[in-house]
């Protein structure tokens, strides 16, 4: 039995978990899950599940001059010990992966939110990763967006995250005539470990007035893009296009969640 996507994909055009290249995993989300916070959300993408709660905007710490121009976003990421396949012990105050995710989230949302509306205040986001099965950063972005919407913090549009990869190591230049490699959307943990991976976050400026009917393509902004793996430069464009497309799909799903919760 083949054990990874890079061997199964060329044969069957199906990935390890049976998805096609452009299919997202099942995304389920809920907002207002925790009444004790200003805003909260639960989001699961496949087996990755995340809980997020937002406190604030609240008065910042005294003597903190940093927030004078706008709110300061604080992000705290906590990966539960039982999140992975093997139980992992946390050593002291957080580990590398979780602090890296926290830094990325902080800088992304700091620039994304309309923080200038809340000078001298703090918006603190607490992310708990309950189970991690790939695309944790992307799922965390989506969960944060939902929680921030629930908290009623103004932002230009929904910030959605998604991962994209290639179905092989993609270390040689792309051959336009017979291209064996397909880009993949929304990678799971085994894929994430073997294949090149890019996390993309995009946002749209909510179209207003008569521009409403215009095509969305023009309005999409890439707000975040990180890639740690090695990849031939000719493939980046394909991956980016797939990732942006995935973000748009996720945006529709998140919008449904938000609208659905208003109805109920």
């Amino acid at each position: 039995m083949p054990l990874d996507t890079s061997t199964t994909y060329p044969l069957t055009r199906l990935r390890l978990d049976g998805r096609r290249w452009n299919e997202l995993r099942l995304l389920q989300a809920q907002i207002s899950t925790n009444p004790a916070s200003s805003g909260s959300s639960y989001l699961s993408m496949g087996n990755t599940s995340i809980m997020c709660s937002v406190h604030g905007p609240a008065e910042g710490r005294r003597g903190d001059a940093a927030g004078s121009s706008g709110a300061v976003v604080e992000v705290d990421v906590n990966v539960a010990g039982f999140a992975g396949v093997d139980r992992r012990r946390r050593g002291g105050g957080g580990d590398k992966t979780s602090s890296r995710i926290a830094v990325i989230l902080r800088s992304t949302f700091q620039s994304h939110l309309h923080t200038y509306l809340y000078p001298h205040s703090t918006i603190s986001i607490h992310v708990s990763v309950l189970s991690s099965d790939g695309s944790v950063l992307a799922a965390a972005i989506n969960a944060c967006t939902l929680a921030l919407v629930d908290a009623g913090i103004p932002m230009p549009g929904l910030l959605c995250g998604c991962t994209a990869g290639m179905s092989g190591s993609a270390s040689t230049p792309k051959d336009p005539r017979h291209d064996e490699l397909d880009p993949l959307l929304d990678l799971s943990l085994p894929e994430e470990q073997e294949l090149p991976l890019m996390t993309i976050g995009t946002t749209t400026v909510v179209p207003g007035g008569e521009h409403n009917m215009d095509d969305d393509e023009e309005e999409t902004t890439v707000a975040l893009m990180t890639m740690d793996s090695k990849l031939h430069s000719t493939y980046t464009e394909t991956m980016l296009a797939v990732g942006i497309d995935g973000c748009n799909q996720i945006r529709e799903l998140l919008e449904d969640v938000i609208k659905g919760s208003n109805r109920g």
Partner: protein
Amino acid sequence: MTAQRQASSAAQTPHLSAAELSYLYTSLSLPNNPIRPDGRSPTQFRPLAAECDILPGTNGSARIGFADGTQAIVGVKAEVEKTTLTADTLDARSLSLQSDLGPSGDGREGTEGSSAATGGHGSWVQMSIEIPGFRDDDALPVFLAEMMRESLVGSVGGKDGDGIERGMAGGLKGRLVINKRWHWRLYIDVLLLSQPLSYPLPLLSLTTHLALLSTKLPKLKSQGEEDPFFDDDWAVAEYLYPRASAGLKFNPSQQVRPPVTLLVISVGENVIFDPNREEIAVADAVLAISVTRDTESQGLKLLTIRTIDPPSRLTQPGVPNSENVNMLGATAPGESVAVLNPATGEEEIPGVWRPRRGGVKRSVIAGMVKTVLKKGGVGEEVLAGLEGVQVG
């Protein structure tokens, strides 16, 4: 520094004025029917929502949310580990002179099984608690984790009189033994999702109980002393705490169940359960009492009691009118006369808050334990309620 100080006390002391504290104390210490701020009866718990088996990646998991919004998630993970006798249990039988010990009249040694393999070891259960705003080696998480762990590994299940095993000889520790050389190691990770609004012990204990009830271990396929291997099929996995099934006909009240730790406070002569933050701030004594089902007598049995530092010791005292400079001359002379508070044994002026001093009388402790253990009392009610949560 401040976090450290608060951590060891029962909860972050809410910022209540001396007048508020005194009001709370007076209403909670009304003889026989205390008036709680949220209108509950003394033994009533806060409403909560619970669910089990929420995380597919764990052996067992549960979530409980209190109505005030505090939520806890517990995930249990089990790993197979080789049994080694650590250096502090230098086992005489592991030394080569064990044959000399043979006729010592010790029945267990005669059966050549080292009792570590049948009895299990408390360190096989590991517990960690994460509370936002606390490091995981702060006093509060460590104290809570030790408190819950010791009652968990301390509960010893038994055989009943006619020798029918309840499936849990040796309690949880015994259940973790696979064979003489292998055992399960249980990791219980408790995640508090928001800053604790009150002392989080009841929430964490109830959630842990539920998570353990829903915990399953894969079915063992190997036999005896072989290296263990397990059935891939998760559907045939066995519950860590055996459930009632058609073949076994003992009633649910006789099954071994994980313990629950209840937070009990005494205010005046009243015993109050599941206190919220304001109530615990005026408590004379705070006890954490762990109980579990007694498989033999159908009742409850006591596993651990720990005192918890009541935060009322750290509050600020009120000033009686007779000593207040601003009120000089405005009070009638006989207005503030100190009376003896029977619960604390100290002279107090009614309506003026004094931080608690000293400890608890033995009779008070006995009364609190009795209320928990009594037949049809709170302990049984809680266990029955948790049993009702749909598992699976």
